[in-house]
């Protein structure tokens, strides 16, 4: 018997990608964001981008086709429905949060305390599992409507 070589990293990445996909399905965007492609930006996490792009690109959610874009940094970012911000670049989030809010972007982060820097959903570790917390306040500011399934499963809602 052999170890599932690299399996742990692959598994964790898969969980994260599935969470992001579920955010797409369980959040309601303003009506002016319901036309055209549904754009998901991945900031500074190439592996997550590659996995999500290969798994979900082209799928349709509420009549919108999912497209994925990868950015090295905030400066390269274009308007998107969801932006995942990797921990390495999240220190620049607060500087960009008003622009992201204006773009009606759901910001998903992956480091402690970022709900206070403009993030709407932040990944956390809860009892050895990947979980998430929600800032309903930040969601209301965009405005975004977080579905009941996400609110129920969130580790905390502020």
């Amino acid at each position, binding site marked *: 018997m052999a*170890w599932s070589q690299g*399996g742990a990293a692959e598994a964790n990445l898969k969980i994260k990608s599935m969470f992001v996909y579920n955010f797409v399905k369980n959040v309601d965007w303003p009506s002016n964001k319901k036309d055209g492609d549904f754009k998901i930006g991945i900031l500074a996490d190439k592996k997550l981008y590659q996995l999500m792009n290969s798994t979900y690109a082209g799928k349709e959610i509420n009549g919108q086709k999912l497209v994925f874009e990868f950015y090295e940094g905030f400066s390269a970012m274009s308007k998107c429905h969801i932006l995942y911000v990797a921990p390495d670049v999240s220190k620049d989030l607060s500087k960009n949060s008003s622009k992201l809010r204006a773009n009606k972007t759901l910001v998903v982060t992956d480091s402690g305390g970022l709900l206070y820097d403009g993030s709407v959903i932040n990944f956390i570790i809860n009892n*050895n599992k990947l979980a998430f917390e929600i800032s309903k306040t930040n969601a209301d500011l965009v405005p975004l409507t977080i579905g009941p*399934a996400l609110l129920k499963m969130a580790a905390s809602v502020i």
Partner: protein
Amino acid sequence: MNSLKYILTLIIGFSSLCGFAQNSNKYCIYDQVALEKYGDKDLDGARTYIDSAILMCDDLRVDPYVHHIKGFIYYELYKRDQVNDSYSSLRDTAFSAFLESNKLDSENEFTVKNNKSLRNIATRIQMNVANLLDTTNYREAIKVNNLYKETLKKGNIEVDNKPYDISFYISLGGLFVDLYENDKVANATMIDSAIHYYEKSLELDSLNFVGNLQLGYVYHNLSIDIILSMDPEDDIMTMYENQERSSNFGLLSLPYLKIAHQQQPKNTKILYGLAGIYFMLQEKDKSDFYQNLYNELTKEQEGNQVPPKNGN
């Protein structure tokens, strides 16, 4: 006329009695003939004579030596004709003969040698079990192993069976893992059997290195398999449930891997596994600790070769 009949009857009756006595004497030396045949490697002849001796001669039927010889003759026949037959009738007859010899051996002349032969027979059954330990014949291996246990009991054979039992359970565990990995859907329950047998090995020796390592492997891989086999379209509730199951398996793997690690702290495969499972459990600091140990040891052992990463 009547008296003539009476005389004839007496003559015939006497002749018969003499004939019977002669036959009886003849059979009572058949054990010696059997021994000669055995010495000449005529095992079939030896078998015929020893069986006749015991059947036809009352004295030999209760002679422990004769049953001792019978045991050897049948044991050699078994080795010649049925050694790969797990349910050999020749082996059974040899076994019964040695037991009978012990029963009759009030002077304890043959008991030591009989017991040695009984042990040899049990060892032969163990060898049958070993030959059946593969993914096709494992059910038969379990049955023959039960036969081995019954044989020990029946023969009152005292052996330290613990090392054998541990090895048997670990081998079975490995077979069930192989069956599971060959088809994880069709053979999903096989992994439960693997866990069952690894646990049985650890009941006998809780510090057994292989048992701990293998059970740690199983739980580690189950933890990862659950996530990797999820449907990417699963809803969030299903994801949570699967994460919970995965995390539980990950936590189960830790104590076993740690015991294995304590015994072989420089075993890089165990370090790699520990780094992986802590990564899976979202404990990055601990994962990094074992990954760093792994990296250092790999460098030591393989020069400057770049080690694989768990991804953390």
